[in-house]
């Protein structure tokens, strides 16, 4: 039954479950992902948490504490351990609870995990997955609400994916676990409770393949992660105005599916990029640059970007709601490139 509905959280969890059943070399580690070692619960075979936001619920019951490892608050040590384990034969998944914490462990990710293979002349591989929460909307303030996937996308040796629906969340996780390179998998916290159809079989969505979320002819909107949902809302509004928008969801940021993006732009002649990350040195600017360099003669209007401002994420609900790009700004940007 292909129209079974799951939440993003359930789809994510199911992918890990199926991959861990498939391959005994897959293990997982992170803070509270088993849910604390509180003995009275262990005895009852129960778990306390299953991860801060419940992403790993139930995994420890099925796979036990030898494969689902709670860690101390030592991101350098355990994410580096995942890298070291990957280069010696396991296929670890490590949870960096919030991407905002990359500042305490980035060396192990970008100088070790990403570069060992190159520096060793191809004589090593590092099949590790690091999954991490991103994004604003939780009133979690400046240090728990960033996107930051641009920083990881900048790094040679890393692959970066940003799922947007339960369906692609599952397929991209299976692909990431089976991939032989380090993959950083970004989960937007606001998407966790969204739901959609998810097949039961263990399918894979190849890394580096974008998805046409909506076919259209008048303007191309490239929208990353949660922004895809807002782009779809904006497209509805614009349809009412007779503007037929095509929405491209890259899914993978590195490798980036340049072909699909360029084909769409060459068809519509207009480009708007929507990205919740801050503007400087962003994936959005990569995509504008791609179009400006390789579809220059096709563009009928200057490409637009709809992004968060160059500010930290504010706590106050009224300010955070202004911080996050929304359907209205997307619609305005499309109208502007159509003008």
């Amino acid at each position, binding site marked *: 039954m292909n129209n079974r509905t799951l939440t993003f959280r359930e789809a994510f969890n199911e992918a890990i479950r199926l991959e861990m059943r498939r391959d005994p070399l897959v293990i997982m580690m992170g803070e509270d992902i088993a849910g*604390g070692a*509180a003995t009275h619960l262990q005895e009852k075979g129960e778990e306390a948490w299953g991860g801060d936001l419940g992403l790993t619920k139930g995994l420890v019951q099925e796979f036990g504490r030898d494969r689902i490892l709670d860690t101390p608050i030592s991101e350098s040590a355990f994410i580096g351990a995942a890298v070291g384990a990957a280069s010696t034969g396991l296929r670890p998944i490590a949870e960096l609870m919030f991407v905002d914490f990359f500042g305490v462990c980035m060396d192990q990710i970008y100088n070790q995990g990403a570069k060992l293979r190159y520096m060793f002349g191809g004589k090593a591989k590092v099949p590790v997955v690091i999954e991490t929460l991103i994004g604003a909307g939780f009133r979690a303030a*400046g240090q728990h609400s960033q996107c930051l996937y641009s920083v990881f996308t900048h790094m040679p040796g890393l692959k970066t994916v940003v799922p947007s629906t339960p369906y692609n969340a599952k397929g991209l996780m299976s692909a990431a676990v089976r991939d032989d390179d380090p993959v950083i998998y970004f989960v937007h916290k606001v998407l966790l409770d969204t739901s959609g159809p998810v097949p039961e079989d263990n399918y894979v969505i190849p890394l580096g393949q974008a998805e046409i979320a909506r076919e259209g002819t008048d303007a191309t909107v490239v929208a990353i992660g949660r922004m895809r949902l807002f782009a779809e809302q904006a497209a509805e509004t614009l349809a009412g105005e007779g503007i037929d928008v095509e929405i491209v969801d890259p899914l993978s940021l590195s490798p980036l599916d340049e072909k699909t993006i360029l084909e769409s732009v060459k068809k519509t002649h207009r480009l708007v990029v929507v990205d919740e990350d801050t503007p400087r040195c962003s994936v959005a600017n990569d995509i504008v640059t791609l179009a400006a360099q390789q579809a220059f003669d096709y563009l009928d209007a200057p490409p637009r970007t709809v992004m968060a401002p*160059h500010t930290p994420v*504010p706590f*106050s609900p*009224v300010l955070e709601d202004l911080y996050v790009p929304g359907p209205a700004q997307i619609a305005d940007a499309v109208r502007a490139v159509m003008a």
Partner: protein
Amino acid sequence: MAEIEKEKLLWIYERMKLIREFEDRASKLFAQGEVPGFVHLYAGEEASGVGVAALLTDEDFITSTHRGHGHCIAKGVDVHAMMAELYGKATGACGGKGGSMHIADVDKGMLGANGIVGAGGPLACGAGLTAKVKGTDQVTICFFGDGASEQGTMHESMNLAAIWKLPVIFLCENNGYAQSTPAYYHCSAEDIADRATAYDIPGFAVDGTDVFAVYEAAEHAIARARRGEGPTLIEAKAFRYYGHFEGDNLSYFTEEERERNRQRDPISKFRERVLSRGLLTEEELNAIDERARQTIEDAAQAAKEAPYPAAEELFTDVYVSYP
């Protein structure tokens, strides 16, 4: 038991009660959907924050954690400004931009709650360095949790403070858990205080529910720091009444554990002590109870009615200047 004059005893009790009232109220407000975000409550740990702050002036510094309300109140941050910050209102301590995890009041020497575990260590070394370079006798208290003791920043900070002889007291509040993970699982050391040997500095483990014990240990450490003899590591063993953050149902606590904790309540413990020793009277304590309740009541009311920040505030305070 440490000799503490009456004025100070009254101050200590009032701060502890203010913290408890503030946290109980914050918990209700979160449950009612009045206050959003990640809210980490300090109830049960009042004795460590207040026991240390009782020895500080506004000139001294503290660095805090995600669980910072108690540190703020102990250091004298205005509870109205704090409550408004929890709401994200313009009248908040940070104009609503920081929220519970980032309440700060630099003028009061409160260098901020912090969303990053272990991040206070280096910042505390910096405040200590300022005092050392300027030749003042200011001290800095670095509050951190048992879970934070596994973060590399704390190791680096204690070593740096030790070799530079910085006037910093590292105060580890061991409440037994890092989120749902118990200290006996995440920490290899018997006592976190044992780690002082790694830096050749004094280390003490004290009952963090006994404000007199905390006060006594802090008194030695602060005096040592003011004399320019460098840092001390103090581990205050306590507990938390609430979940890691509001929304956590504490499923990982046993009933015995909850009961044991209730028996160790730092506020009841203080009351018994001062009453049995005739240091303070029922009337004095009850008056403080009533005042604390009223203060928090007013703060919550005022915060609820206060305005949200103006839209332009999204763009201000990123830089002092940016052409």
